[in-house]
């Protein structure tokens, strides 16, 4: 079993969804139930595979290094290879993906958004899954780029076909923003290839090979990647696509966007930009930190100005991703651990919030918070779940959200030595202020939607019912994980820490030993 997993453990779950999609393509559209079953079976199989990977990963007991490495020829002429592997940073994110997608299938079982067509919807979902898993597994820049881009098309169609009223605008905006970033990112990858000592796209070799690049070039190359990943995160001021995309996307699309797609950007920073170009990262870090805290405050203020529940959750994403980026910008292993935790926590919590927003919309046919209210009276269980998620989102200790925000703030008290302490300490103060605002907007949201009595127009509406079976099934795993990770964060930190320390070792150890970044600063 171990042998098999080591060879095929990553390729099978990556491409299984595509195979499922191909099978569905051959089945006529009107056999909807069969389509749903195939999609569910495929995504569950992938999830089971993920579980096997997890077990084997624990068994291998080598969290810091890449596991399940596959290295095969792909495009020889450009020295790009099919290299896959996961370590403690990518595995949690990959498992998150494998968990979220089947939950999305279950959630949408009986309520596909207009114009229905489960066949096309589920095929797109499966293609998305391949792209997302592949991005977290790829260890070759070009392979990474291909998977990174594969997610664009399905998401574009998902928003554009099944989205809300303003879907066309939101879909193309999402597409153009992301493509702009990734085109420049590709140029950066190529520059890296030609400038590095060894002409390679292999992410495992590049940190060493890229060390010889002149610092001025490094800063430019990092700039290209910054645009590519920063737009995806999204960082202020590139965030404008996000509220539109989130608001207009169908529920499942929003969930996937929030839970996984945004993580591709932050993951890119942690996996590619910083380990390969640490010197440039040190140059950019104060700037990234600044944008991160601006994002935190801006996102929070944006939330306070919203009337639409879904748009509020979308702006809260901007704020939360600000915390993640702040953790990354400290360039300490502590901060980056916090960032990875923050990614997973945000995926679980905001994914849940979008599920809830979707369910509210389905019941009330509106997300206008001035018309909502009394959810706890009409649908008490859903109301409580919303309360639980709001608490998790505002960073209540004991729930997962806390472990993403608090350590990130703490890390900025003591950033990598090469970074100016005063700058990051002032960032820390601003970020702490952001948590207060977060409590403000989330409680305000809760008050508006869950507390009080239902409005007259909905008081006797038979559509407003409590959570259904498919909703419970879809939500339970997320809720349990939010609680478990909140109570016992070591589950995740235990896996990420060795990987963070290892993959960023050369330069991040310097926080304690004071070698690399100081040398970099001295150059």
């Amino acid at each position: 079993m171990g042998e098999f997993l080591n060879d095929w453990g990553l390729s099978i779950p990556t491409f299984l969804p595509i195979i499922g999609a191909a099978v569905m393509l051959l089945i006529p559209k009107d056999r909807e139930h069969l389509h749903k079953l195939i999609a569910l079976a495929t995504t569950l199989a992938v999830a089971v595979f993920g579980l096997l990977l997890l077990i084997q990963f624990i068994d291998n007991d080598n969290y810091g290094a890449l596991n399940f490495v596959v290295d095969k020829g792909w495009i020889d002429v450009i020295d790009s290879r099919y290299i896959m592997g996961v370590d403690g940073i990518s595995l949690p994110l990959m498992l998150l993906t494998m968990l979220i997608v089947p939950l999305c299938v279950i959630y949408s079982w009986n309520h596909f958004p207009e114009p229905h067509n489960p066949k096309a919807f589920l095929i797109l979902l499966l293609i998305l899954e391949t792209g997302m898993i592949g991005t977290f597994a790829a260890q070759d820049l070009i392979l990474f780029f291909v998977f990174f881009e594969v997610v664009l098309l399905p998401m574009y169609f998902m928003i554009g076909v099944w989205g809300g009223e303003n879907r066309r605008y939101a879909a193309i905006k999402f597409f153009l923003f992301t493509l702009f970033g990734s085109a420049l990112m590709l140029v950066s990858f190529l520059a890296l290839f030609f400038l590095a000592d060894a002409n390679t796209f292999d992410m495992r070799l590049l940190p060493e090979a890229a060390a010889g690049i002149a610092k001025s070039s490094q800063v430019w190359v990092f700039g290209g990647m910054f645009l590519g990943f920063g737009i995806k995160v999204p960082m202020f001021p590139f965030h404008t696509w996000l509220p539109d995309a989130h608001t207009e996307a169908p529920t499942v699309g929003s969930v996937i966007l929030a839970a996984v797609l945004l993580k591709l950007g932050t993951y890119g920073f942690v996996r590619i930009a910083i380990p390969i170009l640490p010197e440039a990262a040190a140059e950019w870090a104060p700037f990234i930190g600044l944008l991160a805290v601006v994002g935190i405050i801006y996102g929070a203020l944006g939330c306070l100005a919203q009337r639409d529940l879904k748009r509020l959750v979308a702006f809260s994403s901007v704020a939360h991703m600000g915390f993640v980026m702040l953790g990354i910008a400290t360039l300490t292993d502590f901060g980056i651990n916090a960032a990875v935790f923050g990614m997973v926590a945000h995926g679980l919590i905001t994914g849940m919030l979008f599920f809830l927003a979707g369910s509210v919309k389905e019941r009330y046919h509106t997300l206008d918070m001035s018309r909502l209210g009394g959810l706890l009276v009409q649908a008490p269980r859903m109301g409580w779940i919303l309360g639980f998620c709001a608490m998790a989102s505002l960073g209540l200790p004991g729930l997962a959200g806390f472990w993403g925000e608090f350590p990130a703030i703490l890390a900025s008290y003591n950033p990598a030595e090469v970074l100016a302490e005063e700058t990051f300490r002032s960032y820390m103060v601003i970020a702490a202020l952001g948590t207060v605002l977060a409590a403000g907007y989330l409680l305000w949201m809760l008050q508006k939607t869950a507390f009080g009595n239902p409005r007259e127009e909905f008081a006797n509406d038979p559509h407003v019912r409590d959570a259904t079976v498919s909703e419970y099934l879809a939500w339970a795993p997320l809720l349990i994980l939010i609680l478990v990770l909140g109570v016992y964060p070591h589950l995740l930190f235990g896996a990420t820490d060795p990987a963070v320390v290892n993959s960023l070792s050369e330069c991040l150890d310097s926080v304690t030993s004071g070698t690399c970044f100081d040398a970099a600063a001295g150059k």
Partner: protein
Amino acid sequence: MLSSLPSIVGFVRPDIDWHAVAPELTLLGVGAVVTLLDIVLLERGRAYTSALAGIGLLVALIPIVTLAADGTTREMFGGAFVVDDFALILKAMFIVVAYIVVLLSTNYIAEGDYWENEYYGLLLASVMGMVLMASARDLVTIFVALELLSIPAYLMAAWRKADPRSNEAGLKYYLMGVFASAIMLYGMSLLFGLAGDTRLSVISDAVSGGDANPVVILGIIFVIVGFAFKVSGFPFHTWAPDTYEGAPTPVTAFLAVASKAAGFVALMQLVHAGFPGRDDVYQPLLWILAVGSMTAGNLIALRQENIVRLMAYSGVSQAGFMLAPLAVAGDIGGEALSAVIIYVLIYAAMNLGAFAVIIAVARRTASGQIRSYAGLFKYAPGMTILMTIFLFSLAGIPPLGGWFAKFAVFRAVVEADTGWGYSLAAIAAVNSVIALFYYAKVARMMWFEDAPEEADTSTLRVPPSLVAALGLTAAATLLFGIYPAAITHFTEGTLIALPY
């Protein structure tokens, strides 16, 4: 008496390597048979001509395969006609493209009641010019090949004789083409005057050297500008939209792919074999052409309402991408050629595919308006998915073939490691985003909009020859994207055999 002829006129027949010219001769033979068939069988022969032309094209592939298997570089006429890897790849591409164009034309020409024999005869003649172009390493040969491929194309563009727009298309194409030929010929005469020979290898020696001889510079600029018309590079693209719109759509596909590729073949040979020492002249010129084409083509394409005009401007922009590696050819040598060939091959697959869909859809809507694609997903989902694949491939979205074409271009310009290269890469990156917008506009129409009330939304029936064309192009587009080694396998190494 005949044996004493050489001694009288002083003419000795040069050695002819019959194997090397077999592809051209096959095409000539098939063209002759098609014409004879018309004379002998008259009306009765019509039904067979497209099949005959198609088979003839496939037969012409055989000598190319045997030549490739043989592997040696063959030269004739003192190096004016060369069969090397470069020539073979492109000859094969031209023939396959022509075969797909035959598939696209079969129903269009038969149902439109056009002149089939003449049509296929001219098509074969034009292809012969292209196949010859791939081997031409001599100014006169290049010029003859160019005219051989262009003149039938002028006629074919005006094939819908009853439609004034088709006449306009042919006339415009003809006038602009002749104008370009004249400019080019003038440039060639300058170069010939300087070198005293028409072979590129000799010209290369004559024009090299750093002196800023204005005759050299003028000659190089004129020749390149002449081909800029052919590849519809900005600002010499003005004929393309009108010609594309007016010409029969299969002919448009032929012009947009094969004719453009032939222009690039000539440019590659000129740049790489003709003026390798003068990158100080051609690089800035091609840089400007590349940037102008991709930017202007894209910006104008944004405003198009007609799908064929959209494809015309998108073709201008794509030509800019193909020109980009040539703008750094002096810095990276043969790599630039590989990048252009990769781009041309992938572009051929995806662009022909897009035109195949346009032809198939127009059979229903009888309209070229982008609006007429509304709701296509509802009644022709297969066609919609294929068109989506081709459009987003043109936009360069992985894992569709176009991404690798764009990647090859980016790789080439970044490899140059110069300010010119990096700025070109950045401009190309921005342009690939702009391009997405108009490709996505068509996709949006098909997927997101509803068909108008009065539209016929019964299932769309597609004739088998179009299905074959769609299958071939879609398979190639996907294959090149997922497994680019399928194409790089042929473009590795030294492609053009330089005589030194």
